[in-house]
């Protein structure tokens, strides 16, 4: 049982603030994925929780207790790194027993825990092998097992799947998610891969340059990104951004773009207007929320097919829309025609999926 709370935590290396007063809560039993580009501070967050880095300001709480002055070894935390850091001269069994012997557990208890863990991770036939006799995925399981066998209060993982190939990463992330759910151990997980973060986290914290832009469920950060950064970082291919200006027309609030006009739904018009710092806004449409057609329809805009990228059952089409390039992602079965390079096609934006951001502050206003 453990919850983690960071309160206004600032970490400084020399004159560089790598964490700028961040606040984050991970509830008991929750799986929180920290995601962001390299250098965003996500690993520093883990180090602060682990007690390996001391913040220059702010507080760290575990289960409501202030732990700023509790040394790392006393926090009952287990860490798994990208490089597994297994003891090369120890077998799987010895790697697992080591932290338990160090903790002074009785021999019988150690054996019982190791046996249970080997069942859980299906390591039975590999218990007496040395790390170099194991594949990457198996070494991963040894590293996880060594951390788990201690039954820590908190699990911290830093790109634990980073050294696996693409297929193994997809397989392992589902296993890890299941394992964490079954054990109910509070977990903070660092990755640079937004696809992985969405798949694995109960909650995702998106970071950039030492600040947390948004914390939410995978659905929240995808459906309602709080800032332009989150909007552009989450989802592949990335969201399309178009410049527009907010205007009143009769009684309606609209956004004008040289090629189209977007009606702001009346329900949110007042709040959009109140939150906009100027007329300048950025409209975001995800590639999956733009409809591609062969012929002109109501509200559709002509565009030219610029690049075609097949992607399994989808087709990603880059289009030249005036001077801009936008991307559309369509289901190949449902598209109804086979776009050709240079062809003139027509696009319709699904207006209910428009995201509106303030151009100056970068914040969501819709």
């Amino acid at each position, binding site marked *: 049982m453990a919850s983690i709370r960071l309160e206004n935590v600032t970490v400084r290396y020399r004159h560089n603030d790598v964490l700028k007063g961040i606040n984050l809560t991970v509830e008991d039993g929750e799986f929180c994925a920290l995601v962001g580009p390299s250098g965003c501070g996500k690993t520093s967050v883990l180090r602060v929780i682990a007690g390996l880095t001391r913040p220059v300001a702010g507080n760290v709480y575990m289960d409501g207790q202030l732990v700023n002055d509790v040394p790392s070894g006393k926090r009952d935390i287990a860490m798994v790194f990208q490089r597994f850091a297994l003891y090369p001269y120890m077998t799987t069994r010895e790697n697992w027993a080591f932290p338990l012997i160090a903790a002074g557990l009785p021999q019988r208890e150690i054996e019982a825990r190791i046996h249970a863990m080997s069942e859980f991770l299906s390591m039975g036939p590999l218990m007496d092998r040395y790390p170099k006799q194991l594949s990457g995925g198996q070494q991963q399981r040894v590293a996880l097992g060594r951390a788990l066998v201690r039954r820590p209060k908190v699990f911290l993982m830093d790109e634990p799947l980073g050294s696996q190939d693409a297929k193994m990463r997809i397989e392992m992330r589902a296993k890890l*998610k299941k394992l964490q759910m079954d054990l109910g151990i509070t977990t903070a997980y660092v990755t640079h891969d937004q696809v992985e973060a969405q798949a694995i986290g109960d909650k995702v914290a998106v970071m950039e340059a030492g600040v947390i832009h948004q914390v939410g469920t995978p659905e929240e950060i995808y459906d309602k990104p709080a800032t332009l950064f989150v909007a552009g970082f989450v989802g592949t291919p990335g969201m399309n951004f178009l410049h527009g200006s907010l205007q009143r027309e009769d009684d309606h609030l609209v956004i004008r773009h040289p090629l189209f006009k977007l009606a702001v739904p009346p329900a949110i018009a007042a709040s959009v207007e109140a939150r906009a710092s100027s007329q300048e806004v950025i409209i975001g449409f995800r590639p999956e929320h733009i409809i591609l057609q062969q012929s002109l329809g109501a509200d559709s805009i002509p565009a030219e097919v610029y690049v075609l990228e097949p992607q399994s059952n989808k087709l990603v089409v880059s289009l030249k829309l005036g001077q801009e390039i936008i991307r559309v992602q369509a289901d190949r079965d449902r598209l109804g025609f086979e776009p050709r390079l240079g062809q003139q096609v027509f696009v319709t934006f699904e207006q209910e999926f428009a995201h509106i951001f303030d151009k100056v502050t970068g914040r969501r206003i819709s």
Partner: protein
Amino acid sequence: MSRVVLLHLHCWYGQTHAVDDVTLEVEDGELCVLLGPTGCGKTSTLRMIAGFVRPTSGDIFLDGRRINDLYPGDRNIAMIFQSYALYPHMTVRQQFAFPLKATKMSAQEIEQRIKETADFLHMHEFLDRYPGELSAGQQQRVAVGRALIRRPKLFLMDEPLSQLDARLRVEMRATLRRLQQDLGITTIYVTHDQMEAQSVADKIVVMNLGRIQQIGSPLEIYAHPANLFVAGFIGSPPMNFLDCRLEQQQGQLYVCNDHFAFPLRPDLAQKVGHDSLGRPLVLGIRPEHIRLSPEAKAGAIPAEVYVLEPQSSELIVDLKLGDLILKMRGDKREIGFRPHLNQQVWMEFQQDHLHLFDKGTEASII
């Protein structure tokens, strides 16, 4: 006009048969991707074409001329590497001029070529900048320009995007593809990333253990994989594989194993030879070709929701079927209900997209 033909190429490194009987034609203007895991022979094949490695046996033709015995510098082939390998101390203009100076071309003609290349790549305003002052996309264009200015017959690219972060890689592969199409220059491109291969290729050559597994368009490779290796390598999450056998009852063929038995559609049944009856087979179904229902349906297979992985507009559902785990992937809007953990659901395989493989030979049956 440049056409590449490889005939029965073999490459041995000591005891290792790195390239095993590769025969391949690349048409003029085509972008051909050599795709496969580490050690599959793709880079060795590329290096033999470039002239860095001598084939143990077999022939390489460029435009009908056998080039096995030509030095790399005499083959009129340009290579683009992972890091672009730009000279950091040279401006774009100097980078462009460098390969031409080596050919003792007149200063006037060099100027002319630089102008043409800069026109083509829209690099005029950047001619006097250093690589450090350019974005990744501009650096890529410089690398292409420097290769192009020699007017080579063939472009070879070895993982040209692997150093970029995920977002930039997705963007750059589209610009690279468009550029290659505008230039119309025959290109052979090596990658281990199946998504990248699908997105840039006219033709994909899937390799494993030194041998070609299949040659085809991205759609052919995805929709009609020739064997288990190709089926499992293309697509993400990968195709689900289930051991099964075919049984005949009252003139109807059933696909069966310990967990299910469903009738094979008559048109598919016709494609199956009688010798496949009763033999060990593998059923292949992609995650995107499984339909889920919250209620029991005739012919549907009951399973349990094991893990849920949100993925932007889609959801990946891990399904437990006895001791097997299958993955299904679908658009959240189209799944039609909100699956929850441990829920009992019913799955149907879309027979339009069903694959059967012989377990022994691993070859595709349907």
